[in-house]
């Protein structure tokens, strides 16, 4: 996999805006159409917000890492933390009731991304791997 962007930041909600800008810039370079860019930026924002909210419980001294790779015909996002370890079951989107506010973030991530998994790796913490197909060459930049 070719590393395109490596972002490291503290677990502050104020950094989410900067993360969105970086992800958007990368997605523009990858040639995704505008609608896909909006959705991908949202999904990555939701994943990082979940780390800050549920992993670090809003403690601002935590660490959040985001790596963006190009891997053949797809883009791979790794969102890493040093929180208590979670399991694949924690990533399952629960059935949603339309008029209930809970569970929206995970629902969005699954709707937008082609795959959502944890990767083995760090001794401590978690790395969430999100994959998204690149647009066909003829559709890039539209």
């Amino acid at each position, binding site marked *: 996999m070719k590393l395109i962007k490596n972002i490291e930041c503290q677990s502050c909600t104020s950094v989410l805006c900067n993360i969105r800008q970086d992800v958007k810039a990368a997605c523009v370079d990858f040639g995704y159409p505008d609608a896909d860019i909006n959705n991908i930026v949202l999904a990555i924002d939701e994943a990082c917000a979940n780390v800050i909210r549920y992993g670090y419980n809003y403690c601002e001294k935590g660490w959040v890492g985001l790596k963006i790779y190009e891997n053949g015909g797809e883009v791979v996002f790794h969102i890493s933390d040093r929180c208590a370890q979670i399991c694949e079951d924690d990533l399952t989107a629960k059935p949603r009731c339309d*008029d209930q506010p*809970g569970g929206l973030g995970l629902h969005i991530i699954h709707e937008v991304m082609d795959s959502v998994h944890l990767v083995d790796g760090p001794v401590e913490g978690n790395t969430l791997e999100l994959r998204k197909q690149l647009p066909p060459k003829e559709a890039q930049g539209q």
Partner: protein
Amino acid sequence: MDIIKSSFKHYERLHLNGEIDLHNSSVLRETLLSILNAEQHVLVDFSELQYIDSSGIAALVESFNVAKKQSLEFKILGACGSPLQVLELTRLVSVFPMVDSETCL
């Protein structure tokens, strides 16, 4: 994010400008609930909103449910672009009463 409050017809109108995310969605939630606590109808103006995440959407859903219980109107005005996509992704376009323009009210 800026929230500008004004009156429009029988609504308390909240004009949202900028980006709503986990950093500031609590402000939106508190503002919405305070309006509903005062038993006023709510019109949430999305026309200049550039971004909203699930925490902002959750604030809207919670407030919408409060409005329904109190038989108050709760409408979203002028959703477009990324915020409209979020409402579509979460299938909430069919839950919230949505209007395209003021003339529809």
